C-alpha cells in the first residue's frame, strides 16, 4: 500500500475521534444534574438570569436536541470553546495562554524519560538475570509505583528545602523581569524538578519496552555476525542493536502523550507550573465548567494529533511498515 491512502484513512479516523469527543462534551453538559445553561455558565454563584438567558439563546437550549448539537458543533469547530465567567474571557484564549508551559514540561519530561529509559533498558538487556538487570527492574518498579505528586513533593523537600538548589514553585522568578538568555535560564532552572518528577513516572515503561525490544533484537543473526566480526560490545549494542530496537520505544512515546498530559495535571499542581493542568485543577475548584470542558476537548484533540503524527513518523522511519510488508514479512 502506498502512503497516501493510509494517510487519508488515518486522517478520517482522527476526525471521527474528534467528533466523538465533541459529542461526549455535549452529552456531559446535558447529563450533568441541573439546568444545562447553569452547567455551561458554571461559577460558584453570581450567575444572573440575564446571563442564563444569553446562554440559552447562544446555545439554542430551547430548541430540540439535534439542532442543539448542530449549533454546539458549529460553535466548537469555529474555535468557540465557550466563555469562562471567572476570567470573563474566551476559553480558547485561556487554553492557548497556558499551552506553552505544558508542552515545554511534557516534551522535556518525555525526552528525559526516553533517553534515560532506553539507556536503562539497554543496560538491563546486556545480561538478563544479572545484578544490573535486577537493579534496573527494581528502580523502574519503584518509579512506577510511586504517585507522581508524592515524588514531586519529596524532590521539593530534598532539593528545595533541605538543599536549596531549585525554586519551590512557578515557572520564573517574579522579581526578575529579564528577557532573552537570562529568562530562558530562569525557566530552565524552574523546569528541572517538575520535568524530573514527570519523567520518573514514565521511566519504567520506556525501560521495559527498551529491554524487551533489545532482547528481541540481540537474538538476531546480524547481531551474531557483528559480534563475529569482532566489534566491541558497545558498538554492537549501540550502533547495531539499539537502532533497530528503538522503534517500539519511539512508538510508545507517541502513544504516551495523553498519559503524560494526565500526569502533567498532578505535577503542575505540585509545582504551581502555569500550564493547562493547573488551569484544569483551578477551574474545577471554581466550578468553571466551560474551561474544564474546553480543556478536555482541546487536550483530547492534541492526543489525537500526536498519535497521528507518531503513526506517520514511524511509517516514514521504518521502510517495512511503509511498504505494508511488516505483517507478512514478504514484499508485495
Amino acid at each position: 500500500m502506498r502512503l497516501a491512502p493510509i494517510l487519508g484513512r488515518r486522517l478520517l479516523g482522527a476526525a471521527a475521534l474528534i467528533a466523538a469527543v465533541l459529542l461526549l462534551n455535549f452529552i456531559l453538559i446535558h447529563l450533568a444534574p441541573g439546568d444545562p445553561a447553569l452547567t455551561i455558565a458554571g461559577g460558584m454563584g453570581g450567575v444572573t438570569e440575564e446571563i442564563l438567558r444569553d446562554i440559552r439563546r447562544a446555545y439554542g437550549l430551547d430548541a430540540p436536541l439535534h439542532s442543539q448539537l448542530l449549533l454546539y458543533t458549529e460553535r466548537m469547530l469555529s474555535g468557540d470553546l465557550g466563555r469562562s465567567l471567572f476570567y470573563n474571557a474566551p476559553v480558547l484564549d485561556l487554553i492557548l495562554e497556558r499551552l506553552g508551559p505544558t508542552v515545554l514540561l511534557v516534551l522535556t519530561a518525555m525526552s528525559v524519560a526516553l533517553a534515560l529509559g532506553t539507556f536503562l533498558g539497554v543496560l538491563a538487556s546486556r545480561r538478563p538475570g544479572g545484578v544490573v538487570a535486577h537493579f534496573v527492574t527494581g528502580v523502574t518498579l519503584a518509579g512506577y509505583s510511586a504517585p507522581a505528586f508524592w515524588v514531586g513533593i519529596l524532590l521539593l523537600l530534598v532539593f528545595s528545602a533541605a538543599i536549596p538548589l531549585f525554586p519551590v514553585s512557578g515557572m520564573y522568578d517574579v522579581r526578575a523581569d529579564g528577557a532573552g538568555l537570562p529568562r530562558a535560564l530562569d525557566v530552565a532552572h524552574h523546569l528541572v524538578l517538575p520535568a524530573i518528577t514527570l519523567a520518573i513516572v514514565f521511566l519504567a515503561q520506556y525501560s521495559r519496552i527498551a529491554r524487551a525490544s533489545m532482547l528481541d533484537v540481540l537474538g538476531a543473526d546480524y547481531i551474531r555476525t557483528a559480534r563475529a566480526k569482532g566489534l566491541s560490545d558497545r558498538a554492537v549494542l549501540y550502533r547495531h542493536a539499539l537502532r533497530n530496537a528503538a522503534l517500539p520505544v519511539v512508538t510508545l512515546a507517541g502513544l504516551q502523550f495523553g498519559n503524560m498530559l494526565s500526569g502533567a495535571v498532578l505535577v503542575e499542581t505540585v509545582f504551581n507550573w502555569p500550564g493547562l493542568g493547573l488551569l484544569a485543577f483551578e477551574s474545577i475548584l471554581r466550578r468553571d465548567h466551560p474551561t474544564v470542558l474546553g480543556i478536555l476537548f482541546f487536550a483530547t484533540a492534541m492526543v489525537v494529533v500526536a498519535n497521528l503524527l507518531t503513526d506517520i513518523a514511524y511509517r516514514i522511519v521504518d521502510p517495512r511498515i511503509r511498504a505494508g510488508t511488516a505483517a507478512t514479512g514478504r514484499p508485495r
Partner: protein
Amino acid sequence: MTPRAPGPVRQTWGMVLRNGSAVSGLALLASVLAMTLIVPAFYPADPFDIVWRPLAPPGEAPALPLGSDFLGRDVLAGIVHGGRATLAVGASAAAICVIIGIAVGAAAGFYGGLVDGGLMRIAEFFQVLPALLFAMTLVSLFGPDFVTIATAIGVVSWPPIARLTRAEFLRIRELDYVRASRAVGASDRRLIWRVILPNALPPLIVAATLTVGAAILFEAGLAFLGLGDPNAMSWGLMIGANRDFALEAWWTVTLPGLAIFLTVLGVSLVGDGLTDALDPKRHDR
C-alpha cells in the same frame, strides 16, 4: 495407582510461591491489608478529630507517634483509617475496568467483523481521552461520591484489557479444541465463557493485577487534587490537604505517600511475579 499431577491452580500457585518478587509483593500487600482492615479496630481514633496543636512533629505528644497535620489531626489515625477509601475505590474501579475490558474484548475477538471494528473504535476513543482530565471533569460535573469516582476510573482504564482479551480470543478461537467444541454444537455463550475465556486468563490475571495498582494511584491522584470523597479520609486526601505545609512538616505528606507507594509496589511486585510464573516461555529459567 498412578500419582495424579497437581491441578493447574495448584501448579500456578506453586510457581508464584517460588518467585521471589511475588512473595515479597504478597507479604507487602498482606501487611497493608492488615493495617487497613484490622488495625483500625485497635486504633479507633477518628482521623478527622482535632486533637493537638497543628503541625506537631512526630513524638512531641506521646499520643501522636506520627505527629499532627495542619489542623492538628492525628497523622497515624489518618494513615490507619485512610487506606480503606483508597483500597475500596481502587478495587472497585479495577473490577469495573476488568468487567468492561473482558466483555468488550471477548465480543470483539469472538465475533470479529463489524462487531470487532465498532468495539475497537470505541476502545480507541477511550484510549485517546486523557484519563485524569476526563475523570476530573466527571467528578466536577457529577460530584465526588464513591460511585462516580470508581466509575470514572474504570471507564477510562479498560481499553488495554479489552485489547489483550481480544488478542487472546483471536488466537485461541482457531485452536483445535475450540473447533472441536464448536463442531459438537456448543453455543456461543458456552464457547466464550467456558471454552475460550479460561484459557485466556493467565495474561489477563497479570493485566488485572497491574490495573489494581494503576487504579489505586489514580484514586490517590484524584484525592490529592481534592476531588475524592471529602467525607472519607484517604492517603491522597491527606497529602493534598497538607500540601501547602509540606516544607515545614514533612511527616504530613511523606508518610501517607509512603503508604500509597508501598501498596502499589506490593501490587506491582505480585504482577511482576505472576508475569514470570504464568509466562510459559520463562519456565525453563
